[in-house]
């Protein structure tokens, strides 16, 4: 009963953080800041949602599988973000810090 309460709290918080990241995808000004918004959904929302599900199992093989999916997502999502940022960088996409100084120069 208590476990289910905690699990509910985790699931609701996880859903909230996932939505936060999705909204951030639209609100942030340039590509690199949007990657940060996406990494909120990738890291904490995944941790919270899967912890919520783990508390609902009977702590058997299903739990192990959930832990495995969680660890796998936590290992691969930063790798994917890094690959994405790196190829954006090589594709000569300026970061917003650089864009800001460039527009200031243009205005002057």
């Amino acid at each position, binding site marked *: 009963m208590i476990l289910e309460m905690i699990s509910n709290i985790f699931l609701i918080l996880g859903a909230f953080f996932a939505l936060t990241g*999705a909204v951030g995808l639209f609100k942030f000004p340039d590509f690199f800041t949007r990657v940060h918004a996406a990494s909120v959904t990738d890291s904490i929302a995944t941790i919270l949602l899967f912890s919520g599900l783990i508390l609902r199992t009977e702590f058997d093989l299903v739990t192990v599988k959930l832990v495995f999916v969680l660890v796998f997502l936590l290992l691969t999502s930063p790798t994917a973000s890094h690959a994405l940022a790196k190829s954006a960088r*090589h594709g000569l996409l300026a970061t917003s810090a650089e864009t800001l100084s460039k527009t200031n120069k243009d205005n002057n």
Partner: protein
Amino acid sequence: MMVLAATCIAVLSVMALALARALHADTVYDRILGINMFGTKTAVLIALMGFLNERPDFLDIAIVYALINFIGMIAVLRFFEYTATDDS
């Protein structure tokens, strides 16, 4: 059960937002970012669905989706790393 269903709906709307981002994007990298988020949330959604229907075997499918999403991501990025053009 209510909370699980609500979480499923929240994850579905996150996926819808990610897809909308991928459709209305300035650069090809924004599109890939949206698709990546869509893919990881698919794995989460399948796990949630398994619990909603009380069929935890769905977790195996979630594992497969997570694997395929990662490999697909890396493959697409390999392709775009040096050949991307601005499609805005």
